């Protein structure tokens, strides 16, 4: 028969595809001086002011550089970056950064202090809606500009205004929208009744009123309730200024807001803060403080345009050690050396290729097949095998994050302090870290060890005490408590372990799984019982963990707040001495943990695979390895 013979020939023809000894991607890359990095996800955009994810920041730190650089091996040591050196005034409220005299963008243009002023202006511009603008809120008046608090800017910051801001600030600026007012808003304002108009204006607030609203209000002052001690002339003046602002087309208020950034000559940047911030240099290492190229951005649109092409390949320009060479969507991003970088002589790599491999198991397989130098993560259940077979590749390093259970303190049962404390005491953190969160360390508090900050050592595993607390709370053996639903957005075996722990208390736990977006929404709406979540810090200070638990904070979502806690935070913010400040923050955290709106479970460790020929890569709790200090030293 001819056919079997033909098939055989076909099969033989395929053999050349399979060569026995091929050079691995890593070997080839070592020769070329290119580092192959597993980067988990495709970046949404390279406009650093519009993105907030970790994969994006990895790429962005190769293309851009902040005022202060990262040290390759020490967490809290600063290295020169775009700024050579910096100093501060006595009470740490004014900082001066001296920029590199030969600092340039990757197209050869000079990098000056004005670039930084432009960058922060853009970042804080309310119309741009930068997700991480809040990182700059410690700058004086930055928050008010970012929130477009018009009255404050137009009247409160004006010293010649008849009424002091202290009194004026009590007026209703932001309004309180409700379901009824939503309906009314759809209708023509002039056609509404007096009472309805009043509701609409109260829902809007002074800063959000339209020109039509303001004119109606000027005509009929009874449509709005003001605090009693603001005289009529002042009220009218406020309305007039707001109206004038709107009629002028809502011009940018950056200047009027006197935001605390200014350039003094080409290479001096002066940052004025609203309170002492001893860790400011450390904070400027975050991508939100990086500069963006004004001369490129303005070519492609206004400062407030979100979708311009400036950050695309071919246009994008940065001041970092590398520049964008290739961007194949969903495939890889390659950066190559930037010859204009001020420290180009000391950059070890020729380039970096970032692969957005989402599935961590695929990423591990790729690494073991010689396709990557480093992975983004390592699935916990491969840990044992890797430990046994490839221990030389394994890295487990503490990371600036905490896994915790969030309690909805407005729900029946969870509103009782002792119940929450009991739940927290029933969690065997050691066991969880041994079997499920492998490589992580059991949490002793919310904030992991960061620099000098010592977290209070408060959390325990004590089943007997937990049971006793339940009895004290009036729920012996869990009686009378409803079953709680634990909300999560990924399948994780930890929840089943927690079910087992809480079963010991007689408390039943069900699992509620929602996709990620819905899970976030549910928490923000306080529509859950218990949620499994975590938090990864943005910078090297305890406030990145503690600051979010204030009332109304979008990342709080527990229904808990405490005036005493917030007072302690404010006190710490005013404290210039680092040791005293740390002590106050520790007290705040102790208070927080005692009230147990959350039950911290474990402190993150980064588990990942890493090839030994990558030099200059040291464990860093922020995982911010400066790309310029990396070299590839392949084995001979």
């Amino acid at each position, binding site marked *: 028969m*001819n056919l079997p013979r033909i098939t055989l020939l076909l099969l033989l023809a395929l053999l050349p*595809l399979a060569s026995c000894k091929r050079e691995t*991607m890593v070997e080839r890359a070592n020769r070329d001086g290119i580092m192959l990095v597993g980067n988990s996800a495709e*970046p949404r955009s390279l406009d650093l002011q519009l993105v907030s994810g970790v994969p994006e920041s990895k790429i962005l730190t190769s293309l851009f550089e902040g005022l202060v650089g990262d040290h390759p091996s020490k967490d809290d040591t600063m290295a020169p970056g775009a700024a050579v050196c910096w100093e501060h005034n006595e009470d740490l409220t004014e900082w001066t950064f001296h920029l590199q005299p030969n600092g340039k963008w990757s197209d050869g243009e000079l990098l000056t202090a004005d670039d930084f002023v432009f960058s922060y202006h853009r970042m804080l511009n309310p119309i741009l809606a930068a997700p991480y603008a809040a990182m700059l809120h410690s700058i004086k008046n930055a928050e008010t500009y970012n929130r477009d608090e018009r009255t404050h800017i137009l009247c409160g910051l004006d010293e010649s205004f008849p009424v002091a801001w202290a009194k004026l600030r009590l007026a209703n600026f932001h309004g309180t929208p409700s379901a009824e007012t939503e309906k009314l808003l759809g209708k023509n304002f002039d056609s509404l009744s007096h009472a309805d108009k009043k509701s609409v204006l109260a829902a809007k607030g002074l800063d959000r009123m339209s020109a039509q609203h303001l004119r109606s209000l000027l005509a009929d002052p009874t449509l709005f309730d003001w605090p009693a001690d603001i005289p009529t002339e002042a009220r009218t003046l406020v309305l007039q200024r707001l109206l004038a602002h709107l009629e002028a087309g809502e011009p940018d208020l950056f200047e009027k807001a006197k935001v605390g950034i200014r350039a003094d000559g080409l290479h001096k940047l002066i940052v004025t803060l609203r309170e002492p911030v001893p860790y400011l240099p450390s904070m400027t290492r975050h991508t939100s403080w990086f500069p963006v190229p004004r001369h490129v951005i303005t070519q492609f649109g206004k400062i407030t345009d*979100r979708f311009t092409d400036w950050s695309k390949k071919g246009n994008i320009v940065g001041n970092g050690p590398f520049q964008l060479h290739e961007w194949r969507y*969903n495939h890889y991003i390659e950066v190559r050396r930037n010859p204009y970088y001020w420290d180009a002589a000391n950059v070890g790599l020729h380039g970096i290729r970032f692969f957005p*491999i989402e599935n961590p198991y695929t990423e591990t397989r790729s690494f073991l097949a010689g396709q990557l130098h480093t992975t983004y993560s390592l699935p916990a259940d491969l840990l044992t095998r890797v430990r046994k077979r490839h221990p030389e590749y394994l890295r487990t390093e503490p990371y600036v994050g905490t896994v915790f259970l969030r309690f909805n303190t407005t729900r029946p049962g969870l509103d009782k302090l002792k119940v929450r404390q009991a739940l927290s005491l029933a969690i065997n953190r050691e066991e969880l870290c041994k079997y499920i969160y492998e490589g992580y360390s059991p949490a002793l508090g919310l904030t992991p060890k960061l620099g000098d900050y010592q977290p209070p050592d408060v959390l325990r595993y004590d089943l007997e005490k937990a049971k006793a607390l339940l009895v004290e709370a009036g729920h012996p053996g869990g009686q009378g408590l409803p079953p709680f639903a634990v909300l999560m957005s990924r399948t994780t075996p930890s929840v089943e372990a927690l079910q087992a722990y809480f079963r010991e208390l007689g408390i039943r736990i069900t699992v509620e799984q929602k996709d990620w977006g*819905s899970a*976030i929404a549910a928490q923000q709406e306080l529509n859950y019982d218990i949620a499994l979540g975590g938090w990864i810090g943005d910078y090297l200070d305890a406030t990145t963990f503690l600051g979010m638990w204030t009332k109304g904070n979008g990342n709080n979502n527990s229904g808990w707040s405490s005036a005493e806690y917030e007072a302690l935070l404010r006190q710490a913010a005013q404290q210039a001495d680092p040791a005293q400040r740390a002590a106050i923050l520790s007290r705040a955290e102790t208070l927080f943990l005692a009230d147990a709106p959350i039950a911290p479970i474990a402190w993150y460790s980064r588990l990942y695979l890493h090839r030994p020929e990558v030099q200059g890569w040291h464990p860093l709790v922020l995982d911010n390895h400066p790309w310029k200090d990396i070299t590839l030293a392949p084995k001979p």
Partner: protein
Amino acid sequence: MKEMLRTIASRLTQGAIVLFVLGTLTFFLVHALPYGPFQDEKAVPDHVRERLEQLHGYDKPLLTQYGLRLKNILSGNLGSSIKVMEGREVSEILRQAFPVSLTLGLIALVIAISIGIPAGIMAAIGRNTSVDYLIMAAALFGICLPSFVIGPMLAEFFGGHLGWFPVSGWNFGDLSTMFLPALTLGLGSAAYLSRLTRAGMLEVLHQDFIRTARAKGQKNHIIILRHALRGGLIPSIAFLGPAFAGMISGSVVIESIFEVPGIGSLFIKAIETGDETLIMGPVLLYGSLIVLANFLVDLVQLWLNPRLRARASA
């Protein structure tokens, strides 16, 4: 001839209707999702979210949005991604991803045809012998084994263990990266094709004119090639359309297993975040490919099967 044109026109109209239904369905399904594209891991401040909704027209009533989208799409503007790759034009993203998916699909199709059809022919010729049973058993296995079982196994064995092929990734410059994904994708269709080819060939081989040719002393392989193939392949050719459609859909899974930067992985990401424009683009593209494939298959069938041609012009 006029009848042929009439058939072609009606097929194309039907294709247009299909795409319209598909697009409308997608639009309303995506907007019915309980989560929106404007959420982030760290809370997005209200004023930021309002601003984003305004920018993308999400604050307008749903039907208005639908009308606008329809107008845009009909004029060729697929819009820009809202979340996954904010600001990037969907057409530009697809332009990079499409060649990958197309190549994957075509290679898979070639593999499916080159394995499935010869296998079916061999099985038909060796009817009821061990060759037949072996091939049919293999085919049944191929149908029942999901791609997400075969894929990782092939990757691990041929890629990890033997090192013959890369475990994942895709590189136009390196053929070996394409083989495993395409093979995994094509195996299922190969299995179906072999069964259909076998059935079709058997049907033809039983017919009188074959017996006549044999009686006349014609050599067996000439009989097969010249006389039987044309009719025997009809059911298989008819299946190619749905096979290609299935492969397009199935590529979503393959791309996830092998990290192939095609349209499927974009689609999945877009679904996870509710990025409507990035969902619509791939969906319409897939739909168009299937319409086109079915259309081509119909044409080929008409050419192959004189009876159909006669019916069309009758």
